[in-house]
């Protein structure tokens, strides 16, 4: 199944793209996907501990089970105000 991954703020520069479609296996978790993305985009790896993850408009944790059509967003700590 496929999910879309969107990168926000300077994560776009780190990955060189604003979004990609990724094939994920049934039962794959958000954490597993993020690990694979860190291999695909090594510049994300140093940001591992501060990376925020969302699916749709909600924050999610590493154990979130991905679903067909999920829109995953990865981004650095927020800085509004």
């Amino acid at each position, binding site marked *: 199944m496929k999910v879309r991954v*969107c990168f*926000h*703020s*300077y994560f776009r520069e780190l990955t060189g793209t604003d979004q990609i479609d990724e094939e994920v296996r049934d039962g794959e978790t958000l954490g597993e996907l993020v690990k694979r993305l860190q291999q695909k985009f090594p510049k994300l790896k140093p940001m591992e501990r501060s990376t*925020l993850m*969302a699916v*749709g*408009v*909600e*924050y999610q944790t590493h154990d979130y089970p991905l679903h067909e059509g999920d829109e995953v*967003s990865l*981004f*650095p700590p*927020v*800085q*509004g*105000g």
Partner: protein
Amino acid sequence: MKRWLRIQSEPIDEAKLSKERSISNGIGAVIYFLGVVRATEGTETISAIDYEAFEKMAHHQFAKIFDEAERRWPIESIRLVHRIGNVPVNEPSLWVEVAAPHRAEAFAACQFVIDEMKKVVPIWKRPVK
């Protein structure tokens, strides 16, 4: 509770926002906070901050913050404007207004909304030299 939220690239028009204020007879406190772009970021001198938002999620996260503020305090209304794009030094990037029967809850709720925004609302900034 009435709530009004804008994420916009246009400058924040304080006079218009004040003019549009509408409160009931039970309100004893209207407070507002203005977040303004400073000319320094760390040790660097800057001319502006460029703000970016993941708008769909930002709206949702603000709504959750407003829900929680409403649960905690007897607030009549919250209005909030966050500017995105290039915001020059001395200009406001954030305007938050809370109307409540008494000042304690208005101040507390306003502080809460801003603190929570800085934790969860997906907005980012880049200093512009």
